[in-house]
Each structure stands twice: as C-alpha cells, then as structure tokens.
C-alpha cells in the first residue's frame, strides 16, 4: 500500500482571469520508505505541493491520501493531530519555537499528544545530530546548521511515518548541507520513514531515490535517482 497518494490535486489562487494555478492536476504515488525529491524552480508550485501533503493548506480540487486517510476530509482539529502524529516538517527557515530550548522544541509534538518521550530514542537523536552540548540552548543561540539539525530532530522525534522537508539545506553551506542530508536519510531509514524533500539543488536531489520535476504546477518528468534504496523495499 502506498503511503502517499496524490490524486489530481489542484490549487488555484484568485478568480477569473487572475487565477494563478499553483498546482494543476498533479498525481503522484509515494511508497513507504521512499525518499523522493521534488525539484523545481521557485514559484513552480513545489512548496504548495508540500503544504498540501502536510495538510497545511487545503486543495481546490483533488485528494491527498496519507496512509489510507483522505486528509482534506478531516477537520482542522483532526488534521492538526494527524500532522502532529504522522508528519515531521523540516523547513528552510527552521521554524523552531523561539521561546523553547532545543530539548523542549524536540519533545513539544510528543508532549502535545500527551505522551511521554522515548528518552533512549531522543538521546540517540541528540547524539547522532551532535546536539549534546546544545540541549539547553535557545534556538537564537545556535548557528544555522545547528538550528536545522534541531528541526530535523524535532521532525523525527515523534517517529512520524512521513518527513516533509522544504529546502532543508537552503540556508546551509554545502558541507553542512551534505551532513544534514546524510543524517536525515540515515535516521529515516532506521525507522522506515518516507521522505519527501523539496529542493532546487540538483546535487542535493541526487541523494534521493526518485526525483520529481515540477514546473508551473505540473509534474514534467520523473526519474529514478542513483539512490541505493531500490527495488527491494518497494514491494
């Protein structure tokens, strides 16, 4: 069963002649455990697509089915809970909660769900992402790369089934980018997480199993990347 199923998704802004087609009839299937990169120029609609997948925005038409659930059929409350439990977001601008320290940022989604954090796993995340020294720091005291690693830690902390990353390395230098990406990949592999990543950087995109090109709201080309996670997983 595919984890993600996008069915004739459309998102229009404005009305009449002024209509901007951010997404124009996009269909896509992502299998569990896959690492998909969505590539496109700025304004091509890739961010809109990602927002739709995470239930941050609602579509004009079409369906997004995540793990068998039509997410647009859910109300705001349930959609938020879905996001909290099943989706981990990593943004270009990190989007950490400025008033919470690194650890609190990480466990917030877990605590919001009324659960207690899996300490062992968190420690693994923290040490893997090299945040041990920074656990009690506020985001404002961290460098960009560190903040991005915290964002990744937060996204993975709930062990979500999908990780949605919007230009996760956009604000990082190329060395840090590579590091962050590898970490993201390793960790998600461990927990069989599906990754959908937006990037405009072809080199970054090569890390993925599959590259989807999007232009003017449409998927133009889909190609298998040189990723190692191949056929064996997709069954």
């Amino acid at each position, binding site marked *: 069963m595919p984890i993600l199923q996008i069915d004739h998704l459309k998102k229009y802004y404005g009305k009449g002649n002024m209509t901007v087609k951010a997404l124009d009839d996009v269909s896509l299937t992502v299998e569990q455990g896959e690492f998909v990169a969505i590539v496109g120029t700025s304004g091509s609609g890739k961010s809109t697509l990602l927002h739709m997948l995470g239930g941050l925005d609602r579509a004009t038409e079409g369906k997004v089915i995540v793990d*068998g659930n039509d997410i647009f059929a859910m109300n705001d409350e*349930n959609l938020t*809970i879905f996001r909290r439990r099943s989706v981990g977001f990593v943004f270009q601008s990190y989007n950490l909660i400025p008033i919470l320290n690194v650890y609190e940022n990480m466990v917030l989604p877990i605590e919001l*769900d009324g*659960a207690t954090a899996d300490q062992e796993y968190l420690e693994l995340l923290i040490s893997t992402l090299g945040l041990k020294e920074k656990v009690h720091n506020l985001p404002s005291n961290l460098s960009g790369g560190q903040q991005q690693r915290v964002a990744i830690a937060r996204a993975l902390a709930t062990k979500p*089934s999908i990780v949605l990353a919007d230009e996760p390395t956009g604000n990082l230098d190329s060395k840090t980018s590579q590091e962050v990406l590898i970490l993201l990949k390793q960790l998600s592999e461990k927990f*069989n997480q599906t990754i959908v990543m937006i990037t405009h950087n072809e080199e970054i995109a090569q890390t993925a199993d599959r590259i989807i090109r999007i232009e003017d709201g449409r998927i133009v080309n889909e190609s298998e990347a040189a990723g190692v996670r191949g056929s*064996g997983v997709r069954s």
Partner: protein
Amino acid sequence: MRSADAGHFNRSYIIFAVTALSLVLGYTGWMMSITGQAERYLWPSVLFVFLFALICVLWLGVMRRRMANIVDTLDQIVEGAIRGQARVTGYSETNLSSLENKLIRYIDLSFHHERKIEAEKNKIKELISDISHQTKTPLSNIVLYSQLLAEQSGLEGDTQQWVKQIRTQADKLDWLIQSLIKMSRLETGIIAMHPDSTSVIDTITRGISQIYRQAEQKGISITIDCDTAIHAHHDPKWTSEVLFNLLDNAVKYSEPGGRIHISVAAYELFVRIDIADTGIGIEEDELHSVFKRFYRCKRTASFEGVGIGLYLAREILSAQGGYIKAASKPGQGTTFSVFLLADGQAKV
C-alpha cells in the same frame, strides 16, 4: 483475574454508594432540623434522595457501557493494526487514538524489520552461490594442472611427493567448499528436501557404495542387519549422504581390521539406523559437542577433516524431521543412531 477485578469493582461501588447515600441523608436530616421537621419538606427530600440514587445508578450504567466500549474499540484497534486496515479512531485528541497511532507505527516497523532480515538472507544466498560458482573453475584447474604435473616424467622423488600433496590438498579444499555450500544452503533453507516413503535398505546401500572401497582397503568389514521391507519417510539422496558421512567417520577412526555394524529397527514413530564401529570412540564430555560446526575432538587432531560432517548430518536430518544421536565408549567404539520419520508419521 476477571472475577477478582469484578469483586474489586463491586467493593468500590459499595463504598461510593454508601458515601453518596449518607451524604444525601445527612443533608436531608440537616435541612429537616433547620426547617423544624416540617412535613412539607419531607417529600421533596425523599424525592431528591430517590432522584439522586437514580442518577447514580444511571451514571454507573453509562460508565460501564463506556468501559465496555473502550475495550471493544481497543480490540478493533489491535485487530485493524495487525491487518493493516484503516484507522479505527482516526486522528482525534484521545488516548485511544494516540495509542492506536503508536501501535500502527510499531507494527509497521516490525514488518519493516522482518523484510529487512529477509533481504539480508537473500544476500547471503547469492554470496554463497557466487563463491561456489567462482571457485569451481580455478579449483578444477588446480587439480588438472597438478595431474599434468604428476604425469610429467623425470620428477625428482621430493618433487613427486609435493605434487601429490598439492593434489590431495586441492581435493580437500574442493570437498570443504562443497561442504560449506551444502551447509549454508541447508542453514538458509535453500536446499529443498524431498522426503518420500523410500526403502531404507536402498538408502543404506547407496551410502555404503561410496565408502566400500576405502573400507576394503583398510580391511574393515561392514555388516548390515536390515529388514528389506522397512520403509521410512526420507529423502534418499541426502540421507545417504548422511550415512556416507557417518560411515566415512567410522572408517577413518577405526584401526585396520575393525568392524562396522549397521542395524535397522522400525519403531512406531521412527525408523532407527544404528551405525556402530570399533574405532577410537569419543570422550563423554565431548559427546554433545561433536555435532557442532567445525568442532573437532581433541584426539582426532591428527586426522584429516574440517569438523563439518556431523554438523551437516544433523542439519539434513532435522530438515526432514529426523534426528541423530551418538553413544560412545572411548577406545571401544562409537554408535551413531539416525532416526528417520516412520512412514505413517510424515502426514502429521
């Protein structure tokens, strides 16, 4: 467990009921004393007590129904999660929904791990077939060239001896690799057994035929005591391999002029084949170890071998539902007992 729980619940019910009732009665009594025991306050009080009790009972009923519902839902959740069906509770702000989410994730991950292990197994399988495939040609080349070398006239005495050694070692390596392949195939379940009802004497004969020459050379006699009518549920090809291994050992560890006796007995569940020799025997504390992979007895260190024959024997037998055991007295000889499934037993 269940009844104990129920008893506990009843006790707490009683405590609550008594507390509530005494509260209401106390209140009523108090009100009565304040209002001067006027009768017109009595009936509202009685009505109040009655309604209060009624509400309590109704509430208890509702709670019970609720609890039953929760257990039901839990059941559905577990069932659904195992079968990979749609979520029962969806995404809502409840404990159950949170629990379901965790359960589904856990089951997901378990499946994932299972698949991963499977994939690793497959990799080993490929590796093994690759090894056997890739070593075959170089090995046979070594054998071929050593033969050619041996046929070359005019070799010095020592040289002749070395060439012979190369030949022997190459054979041994070949055998080792073949054994390893067999072993790993058996372990990973690649080798498929085809057990069938087959005559036991045929299989024994097949095993002996491979060792007979060696035994004869060493002056060791082999006797068989077997009813030709005995059939057992086994794969004759692999079982004869087992017997060959056992006989090979018997010949190897017996002094020239020794005896090997094979006897077959049919039991209700198993068919037993005993192979008794008059060899050096096995120390008692080593008996349980001889079936281990690469295990070699201390006293056999001077003999050739890699310590894989008995291990393979056991693997093959257990793959078709049989087993093997050994009994020995050091210096007097060893008896290996092979148990094969009796005919009628295979269907069970």
